[in-house]
């Protein structure tokens, strides 16, 4: 009986030791194995850009005086922290098919850093993403973002994009083909003509 007890105790002791060794080994692995550590030092700095509301208000006033056909009536109640730029209700674009494009009323969402708008044309959609915030890379640390600029054309899978600066705010203008099959329906000239057509339809933060 005593012998059985001793043997059973020995068995349990060995199993406990083995389990402990296993647990310790796994714990060691956890300690020695690095978690994902991409370059946390390269976590991006962000900057909020000041807006030149004075110029935006002046331009909005000019547009109103000219009875501009931008989509003011549908968006009068929106509160945007950046000036609201929208295309007119129709436009002629050199490379578009059809050349004369009618646009649906803009669908707009706003938040504390800007707005996002979608305007549906006959054969493509215009997406505007506006923001007063940007990542700043090390190379641009301390360099101001220009208040007004027109960026380079960027090709997308089913469209094109250009970023512009107006009144300090940033606007990413994307034109996307409505039909997935029309992979090449957008040209740089079309995006630039859309940008030229944009006007301020709201001028208060």
């Amino acid at each position, binding site marked *: 009986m005593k012998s059985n007890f*001793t*043997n059973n105790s*020995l*068995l349990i*002791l*060995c*199993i406990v*030791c*083995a*389990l402990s060794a*296993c647990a310790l*080994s796994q714990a060691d*692995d956890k300690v020695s*194995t690095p*978690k*994902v550590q*991409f*370059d*946390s030092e*390269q*976590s*991006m700095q*962000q900057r909020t850009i000041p807006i030149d509301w004075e110029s935006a208000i002046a331009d909005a006033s000019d547009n109103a005086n000219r009875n501009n056909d931008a989509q003011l009536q549908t968006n009068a109640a929106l509160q945007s922290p950046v000036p609201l730029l929208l295309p007119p209700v129709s436009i002629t674009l050199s490379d578009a098919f059809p050349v004369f494009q009618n646009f649906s009323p803009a*669908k707009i*969402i706003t*938040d*504390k*850093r800007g707005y*996002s708008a*979608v305007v549906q044309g006959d054969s493509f*959609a215009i*997406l505007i*993403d506006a*923001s007063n*915030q*940007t*990542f*700043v*890379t090390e*190379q*641009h640390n301390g360099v101001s*973002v*220009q208040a007004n600029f027109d*960026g*380079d054309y*960027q*090709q*997308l*899978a089913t469209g094109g*994009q250009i*970023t512009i*600066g107006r009144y300090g705010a*940033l606007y*990413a203008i994307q034109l*996307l083909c*409505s*039909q*997935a099959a029309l*992979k*090449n329906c957008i040209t740089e000239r079309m995006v630039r003509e859309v940008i030229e057509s944009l006007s301020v339809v709201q001028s208060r933060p």
Partner: protein
Amino acid sequence: MCTHFLSAMAVSLLLIMSCTSSDDDGLDPTSNEDNATSTEFSDCTYLEPGDLAPGSGEGVVDRKYWSPNMISPFGTVAAFARSQVYSPGGLGSSSSDQCASENFEYPHRDTFCERRSADRDSYNCPSRKIHQGIDINAGTRAQCLTLLDAARSVRNGAAPEIANVIPVLAVVDGQVSYIGNYTVDLRPSEGSISRYRYLHLNMATLNVEFGSQVKQGDIIGYYSNDFGSNTTTFHLHFEVIAFVDGVAQYVSPFASFILAEERSKGIDCVRYEG
């Protein structure tokens, strides 16, 4: 007594061996299949950012967390960043089996700069003819086969909801800023990301519409193969567009995705050593 002692030693040895072997094959795809919809995962592995599939183009090492606070678009469901084109089922693969087991195995692989036929710009890829996003498979081989069956049934008139197997989540708080033919865009409520773009969801059964306010983790739709009037393999193409130095750029979601996988699944992801 000697017999008992030897038995005890043998049991102990077996325990130690099984412990070691489970460390060695922590990436066992079978166990992943079994656990796909649970919260238990083997620790994941990833290839270095920019380490593209052989023959698929030149990558770039981008370790930046462009979106350090996002969660995985698949939450606790198994997800595998891999090449859609150069994996089984893709046009660049010799296998046509999109549900092949290897499509549901680690390591995660970057595809941001993967070669494409047409020009597409990005923040930092060496080439202009690139992918602009990463592709992610979700679930298991069994769920993939279920989805294929469901898609067949939908083509034959069944309700599209039967193909809603794997939910796709809002990676951050925000608003839905665009819904295209096979595209859903999410504008985060703060920060310098312009939009997160999800491609190939089941567009007939979206859980959101333009302007929908979503919280991180809300279901926006379901994993699918929708490609407008066509279909692709079942996968999620995921893009991040950010304002960088004042310019909207396509940036690599890969590093952020790995971090998000760790957070969402409570796992550690380690560099794959081959």
